[in-house]
């Protein structure tokens, strides 16, 4: 029994313990615990202001936590910048507002980090970038600039850009919330494919269809804490807490 617990522990690629994050006097995260196994797909949901974005922004130290521990793939996130950079290399992130670099073409967006951080040669980085742009079906726009693409296309480029670093985990921070409705699906399809390939994913999203389809676990947050954790079937059919029931009623009419 103990052994089993230990092997389970060692395959946890993300471990969050007693995480606290404050913004001034506002406590955004209050004693959050979470673990993610390699290959697991987690969907984090909850009302706005519940701390879900803050949580995944802490996972690659875009946001510094105030107390508690975050261990990513065996490395604890502290003030030591070398560790932080190591973690960031292995953790890809996709933002709500895409955050592509507007002064670089699509393919250059994808080549920058592999060349500068991983030390790939220009031809190698180019080949990898084109390969991943093809995977998100946007390789024919490789030489355009982000400003010339639609929102959905930009978000797919952002996914390809993160994948070019060959991360072990992908974080998605409401990747479809800034998109026009007709572009949501193209991005979700890309994410579903990624999940099918076995990528470890932590997604903050309100797309419950996506959660149902690919998530291994749904984490429901409210007021800075994890309120409920369950497999999607159980969560959507029989949420245990009143808060989760209220939330589900609101997003599914």
């Amino acid at each position, binding site marked *: 029994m103990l052994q089993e617990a230990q092997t389970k522990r060692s395959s946890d690629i993300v471990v969050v313990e007693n995480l606290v994050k404050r913004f001034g006097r506002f406590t955004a995260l209050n004693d959050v615990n979470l673990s993610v196994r390699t290959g697991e797909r987690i969907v984090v949901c909850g009302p706005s202001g519940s701390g879900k974005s803050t949580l995944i922004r802490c996972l*690659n130290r*875009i946001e510094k936590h105030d107390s508690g521990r975050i261990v990513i793939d065996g490395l604890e996130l502290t003030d030591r*910048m070398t560790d932080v*950079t190591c973690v*960031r*290399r292995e*953790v*890809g*992130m996709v*933002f709500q*507002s895409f*955050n*592509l*670099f*507007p*002064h670089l073409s699509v393919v250059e967006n994808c080549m*920058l*980090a592999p060349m*500068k*951080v991983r030390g790939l040669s220009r031809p190698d980085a180019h080949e990898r970038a084109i390969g991943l742009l093809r995977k998100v079906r946007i390789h024919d726009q490789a030489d*355009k*600039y*982000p*400003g*010339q*693409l639609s929102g959905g296309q930009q978000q797919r480029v952002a996914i390809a*850009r*993160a994948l070019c*670093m060959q991360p072990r985990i992908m974080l998605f921070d409401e990747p479809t919330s800034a998109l026009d409705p007709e572009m949501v699906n193209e991005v979700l399809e890309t994410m579903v494919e990624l999940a099918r390939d076995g990528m470890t994913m932590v997604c903050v999203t309100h797309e419950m269809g996506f959660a149902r389809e690919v998530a291994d676990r749904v984490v429901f947050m409210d007021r800075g804490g994890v309120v409920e954790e369950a497999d999607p079937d159980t969560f959507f059919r029989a949420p245990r807490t009143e808060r989760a029931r209220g939330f589900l009623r609101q997003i599914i009419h």
Partner: protein
Amino acid sequence: MFGVLFEQAADGQRYIDWLLSGLGWTLALAFFGWWIAFAVGLVVGIGRTVQNGMIAALARLYVEIFRNIPVLVQMFLWYFVLPELLPNALGNAIKQMSPPWGSFFPALVCLGLYTAARIAEQVRAGIEALPKGQTEAAHALGLTGYMTYRYVIVPQALRLIVPSLTSEVMGIYKNTSVALTIGLMELTAQARQISEATFQTFTAFGAATLIYLGLALIAYQSMVLIDRAVRIPGTTPAKDAIEPRLADDVQPVGSLPEAMEVVK
């Protein structure tokens, strides 16, 4: 009217040659001063935006000192005061530099460092105008602080500030005229010398004015070309981006009477 410029002066040259020689010093001062200003301004401007409090404070100090002392006073400080503050041997060596260089170098350093403080503020404004998501995305990809500035932040910030750098380019070449106070025979000094030699004040300064004006137009045009050359495809030029917003602003004005009635 400008005929007198082609007459021979006491030294055997024509007056126009005096003007052209002055123009040469003006251009040299503005050109090399600009590169000093740009290089120092870029570093100091970046310094103002970094996390490290010590570096940010030093950069701030630099800007406050060099921006808030009149350029004429700075000119005197570099020319008259600095050699006295340095060790004797070095101070004397500076004082004994042969004529044009003895004034040229202090003027160059003065204008370069003064304009640098102004450029630093533009660079800082450009960096702060960028969305925070750019830095976050760069960090999330594992880029270090230096790489983030080098490949993501600075290239975008510089594009943003090309229009305001235009006025700094024009500023530095106009400020070159202050160098006449420490004896550099640049364009304004030569114009004054011609006016004193010929008593044709209007002609002498009129010619200088036209030359300054021509330079301003050239500087302006080159910056417009640079702005166009570095523009990011898929983005609208600043002017077009503003105009639709102006159109939007017109509507609330149209509905203002109703709003005022409500106030009544």
